[in-house]
């Protein structure tokens, strides 16, 4: 029994250090019934004004205690001992008090009777178990009164001037709305912002400690809580955004979006019409609109997003700066939850229409063993697309271990357009070798269906899971159009050697359907070690009917052209089984395994009535390794091998003369590619110094790569045929460093990157190897001050170099650089100014001699208006210097190409943006 005494002495010593007062108390703790002194009893002194613990001690072996050097004041003496009732007394100490409390009697709790309170029951008040429920309407308040005013009228509830609520004598720590917190943990947000007439019932209860559902803020103990149950018709409201903009020269950008919600139901509608390139909702808007994105986590904890676009290409990204667009779109979204949120349904409908017209010029160089051709072509085009899309997601949490998710989406659309081209080619000596005109038009429709069912089940043993995924994807495209082309070729002396006219009707019907099923089972082998077994069955069927009809003498397109017509089917049946071992440790995560797949190809030529089949057996090894140095630094290395099957266009034995100067022919003997890929990644971020480093590298090589065999005749007429070749590889690597400059309070970053690739093909029967390499370096700096300004600048310098073995005398080498700067300044009187500069400088080459430098400067000045800055009036200027150009440069194998096309140039737009919201339950203030 020495230890408690030592402890007591130590505690007394500790608490008496530095305190010079001399009040003291002492006494002896004793059991009233058993007449025995009690040791280890806690004697605490609490400040009587706020119950804050001032000092405590324990009684010694003889039940005696003493506390010295106490400050004068009013105290509560609390004496506690297990199984005995608490002893509570008031104690007033002066500086000279020397209280001897004598014998303090403790009573065993079993001897105490509990006091029972009986509440008076009024009609409007009900007691449900330990919950007191008030019917809100029974307590009259003025029109538009807040909940706080109503609470003041309820019996047993007091509200002080600060909004603090006391119910049945205890402070209310929490006010919930429909069982959920209303904007954080400040009760007054709910009581002062909600209107009394929105409330159906007021429930007052003690939140229990052992609730099955942990409610976060509630730590588990009793907590006086008020729950406001809203009337069903008041759980509604809306928010939305209106953006109206107009300018000269047929420039407009208008959008409106409204979300209504009522209880768990959410209904949203939007409409957009724009001639400035906005063709759909942006990411932020899309999230508000309720379609949103899904996030998943990989085994090692990395997060990745899965978009919900479902392959709908006629959306945000459908305008990429080519041509002058006009777009219209509208949508409707419905979401609801049922059965306590265990089931949820989300559905949407969208309509998009996009018209774009434009002119362009393309210059391309073909490098051949003995010569070089340069082709220049100018074009005029118009395209119109329309689409109706439907999306739906249904989720059902069957129980705590099983869930089901069904997603389905589809669209149906039409597309039509025409384009006219005129071009000519010259050879390396400057002689004209051909002249061409080409007019193509088509009208068609497309359909898509994508359905996916995911069932997941977890078992009681942690880590044991089973999942089944079934999916069906179907795409169909039909088009009907005309091709008219005239190609004249010339010899070296300028004499016409041929004059070919193509005048055909083109009918194309393609469809592709894929059914996929996969079952995955994981079993824990030990604490961090799992094995995953999977089996998959995949059946894909493609069908392509391409018919070309020549014009008969009667002027009708009724002569089937055999060379350019074919109907082909390509079916692939794949069975895959695999095993993967996974280790998921604190520092190390790795996976190791392989799939084995058996694929059966079946190719049917329906016009020529031939069938061929082939089988492949492949291993798909995969290894990945992650080492975590600390939560902000990790290294990962991975390898995987996979196959890539040829598309039906690559395999269909028919010539495609969409561009008669550039004919492509499918190859039914084409094998599947096998790709080996190695990746490495290193990331490190130091929070305290705000320093970041990243490094990455990737190498991939393809066996049986699908490449082209090109045949170019003396008049620069090209025929491409797909073949398999070995030796293709591509590699890229990069390094980045970022740091915070403490003195400047600015962020600085620098990065370097390097790409290198080798591409094999055949040019006029000669094996050609093209090596491309492109090193680059970039630098950026940013500085911002919240609500004052936000500035960044970054640049990129890239060097491109390309050489083809087929003609080593020609090397393509050029620099490009880009500079981006943005400055946003918040001015007094709610004004803000935003500037964005985007400079692109491209070095001219021997071939590409046009000035393609673009200095794009966009700016706006805006002023926030309305209450809470919910509105803004903006004057936008796009491309102030009227410099914008549509441009792309592409180098692949022995062909180099540069395109210029019409794009949106300078315009000014005056716009008004208004974010509005109203909650029926929120008081108007």
């Amino acid at each position, binding site marked *: 029994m020495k230890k*408690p005494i030592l402890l007591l002495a130590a505690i007394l010593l500790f608490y008496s250090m530095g305190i010079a007062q001399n009040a003291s108390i002492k006494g002896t703790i004793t059991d009233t019934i058993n007449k025995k002194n009690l040791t*280890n009893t806690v004697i605490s002194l609490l400040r009587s004004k706020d119950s804050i613990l001032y000092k405590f001690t324990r009684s010694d072996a003889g039940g005696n205690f003493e506390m010295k050097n106490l400050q004068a004041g009013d105290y509560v003496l609390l004496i*506690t001992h297990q199984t005995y009732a608490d002893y509570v007394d008031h104690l007033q100490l002066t500086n000279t008090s020397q209280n001897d409390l004598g014998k303090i009697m403790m009573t065993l709790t079993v001897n105490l009777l509990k006091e029972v309170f009986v509440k008076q029951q009024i009609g409007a008040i009900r007691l449900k178990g330990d919950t007191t429920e008030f019917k809100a309407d029974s307590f009259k308040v003025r029109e538009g009164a807040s909940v706080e005013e109503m609470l003041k009228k309820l019996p047993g509830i007091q509200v002080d001037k600060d909004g603090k609520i006391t119910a049945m004598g205890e402070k209310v720590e929490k006010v919930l709305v429909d069982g959920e917190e209303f904007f954080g943990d400040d009760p007054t947000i709910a009581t002062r912002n909600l209107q009394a007439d929105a409330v159906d019932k007021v429930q007052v209860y003690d939140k229990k400690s052992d609730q099955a559902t942990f409610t976060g803020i509630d730590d588990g103990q009793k907590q006086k809580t008020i729950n406001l149950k809203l009337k069903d018709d008041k759980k509604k409201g809306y928010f939305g955004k209106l953006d109206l903009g107009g300018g000269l020269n047929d420039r407009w950008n208008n959008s409106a979006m409204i979300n209504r919600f009522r209880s768990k139901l959410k209904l949203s509608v939007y409409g957009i019409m724009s001639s400035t390139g906005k063709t759909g909702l942006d990411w932020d808007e899309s999230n508000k609109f309720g379609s949103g994105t899904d996030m998943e986590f990989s085994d090692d904890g990395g997060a990745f997003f899965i978009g919900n676009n479902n392959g709908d290409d006629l959306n945000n990204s459908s305008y990429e700066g080519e041509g002058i667009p006009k777009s219209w779109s509208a949508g409707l979204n419905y979401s609801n939850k049922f059965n306590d949120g265990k089931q949820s349904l989300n559905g949407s409908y969208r309509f998009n229409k996009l018209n774009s017209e434009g002119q362009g010029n393309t210059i391309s160089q073909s490098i051949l063993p003995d010569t070089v051709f340069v082709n220049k072509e100018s074009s005029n085009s118009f395209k119109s697309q329309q689409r109706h899309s439907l999306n739906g997601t249904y989720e059902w949490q069957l129980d705590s271990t099983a869930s089901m998710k069904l997603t389905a989406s589809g669209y149906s659309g039409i597309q039509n357009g025409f384009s006219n081209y005129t071009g000519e080619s010259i050879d390396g000596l400057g002689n004209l070798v051909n002249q061409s005109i080409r007019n193509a038009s088509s009208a068609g429709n497309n359909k898509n269906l994508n359905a996916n069912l995911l069932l997941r089940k977890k078992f009681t043993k942690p*880590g044991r899971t089973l999942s089944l995924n079934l999916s069906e994807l179907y795409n169909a495209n039909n088009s009907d159009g005309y091709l008219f082309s005239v190609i004249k070729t010339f010899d070296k002396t300028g004499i016409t050697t041929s004059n070919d006219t193509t005048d055909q009707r083109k009918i194309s019907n393609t469809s592709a359907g894929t059914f996929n099923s996969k079952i995955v089972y994981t079993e824990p082998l030990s*604490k961090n070690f799992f094995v995953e077994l999977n089996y998959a069955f995949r059946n894909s069927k493609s069908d392509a009917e391409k018919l070309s009809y020549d014009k008969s003498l009667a002027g009708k397109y009724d002569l089937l052209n055999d060379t350019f017509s074919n109907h082909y089917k390509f079916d692939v049946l794949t069975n895959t089984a695999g095993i993967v071992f996974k280790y998921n440790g604190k520092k190390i995560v790795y996976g190791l395994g392989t799939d084995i797949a058996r694929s059966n190809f079946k190719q049917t030529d329906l016009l020529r009535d031939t069938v061929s089949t082939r089988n492949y057996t492949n291993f798909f090894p995969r290894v990945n390794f992650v080492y975590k140095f600390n939560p*902000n630094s990790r290294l990962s290395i991975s390898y995987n091998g996979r196959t890539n099957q040829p598309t039906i266009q690559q395999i269909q034995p028919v010539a495609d003369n969409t561009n008669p100067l550039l004919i492509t022919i499918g190859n039914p003997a084409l094998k599947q590619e096998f790709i080996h890929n190695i990746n490495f990644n290193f990331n490190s971020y130091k929070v305290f110094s705000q320093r970041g480093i990243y490094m990455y590298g990737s190498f991939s090589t393809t066996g049986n790569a699908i490449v082209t065999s090109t045949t170019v005749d003396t008049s620069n007429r090209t025929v491409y045929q797909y073949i398999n070749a070995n030796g293709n590889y591509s590699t890229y690597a990069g390094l980045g460093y970022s740091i915070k400059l403490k003195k400047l309070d600015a962020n600085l970053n620098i990065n370097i990157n390097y790409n290198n690739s080798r591409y094999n093909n055949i040019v006029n029967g000669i094996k050609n190897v093209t090596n491309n390499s492109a090193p680059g370096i970039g630098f950026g700096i940013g500085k911002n001050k919240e609500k004052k300004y936000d500035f960044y600048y970054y640049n990129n310098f890239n060097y491109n170099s390309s050489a083809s073995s087929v003609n080593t005398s020609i090397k393509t080498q050029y620099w490009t650089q880009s500079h981006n700067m943005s400055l946003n300044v918040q001015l007094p009187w709610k004004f803000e100014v935003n500037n964005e500069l985007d400079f692109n400088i491209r070095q001219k080459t021997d071939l590409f001699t046009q000035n393609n430098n673009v200095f794009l400067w966009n700016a706006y000045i805006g002023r926030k208006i309305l209450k809470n800055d919910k509105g803004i009036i903006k004057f936008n200027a796009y491309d102030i210097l009227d410099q914008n150009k549509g441009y792309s440069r592409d180098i692949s194998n022995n062909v180099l190409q540069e395109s210029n096309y019409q794009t949106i140039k300078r315009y000014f737009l005056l716009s008004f943006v208004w974010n509005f919201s109203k909650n029926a339950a929120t008081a108007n203030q």
Partner: protein
Amino acid sequence: MKKIFVIFSPLLFVSFLNAQDIFITKGKIEFERKVNVYKEIDALADDDNDWLQSMKKSLPQYDVSYFDLYFDDDKTLYKPGREVVTAQKLPDWFQGPATDNVIYNDINAAQTISLKNVFENSFLIQDSLRKIDWRITPDTRTITGFECRKAVGRIMDSVYVIAFYTDEITVSGGPESFTGLPGMILGIAIPRINTTWFATKLELTEVKPEDIAAPKKGKKINNAQLLGQLKTSTKDWGKYGQRNIWHIMI
């Protein structure tokens, strides 16, 4: 009274005054630290930040870990305990800093030495014990068979801490930095950071001196200096930064 503890050698450490009086002076307590991930997401997400909300679908609701608290008279050592086997791990970046603290408290000398892994740094924090003004309440709750009294304190100006302590253990210790009550703290709830620590079992085991050895390695610092550094480096992090500071500085 049913007590959930394992008695290895009761005669050594337990003093029997009468059948009902058992006071414990040394042993080992296992604490379950539980973070309500969904509430943390709610706290981080703005009203319309749906992508953070959508994370809930992919994450478990609770992040659970275990810590052992060794105590002997006036010294305690709190350190990570057994690892939890879960199929679904919380991503590292969400787990936050300072989730594997080792904390040595000398109650009588009112000194603390703790090892906290905060981002890329391991800090050895040497300071005096945190002084908390505990408000004692009449409420009680039973934790692992011990009747615990509720006390409410406040740290870092605005973060409320709810503690449950039992006077049947005579050491005034507790998990993390929490001490100063007339007995052992067996439960802590900090609503602001949606985290609780509750004792799951008590072992009346022999406590060797090496079980209560203060951590030695790490970058030496005190709490005020650490807070200063954190404030500078998480200045631009908004809500996320503030939450991190709370998690680190408890």
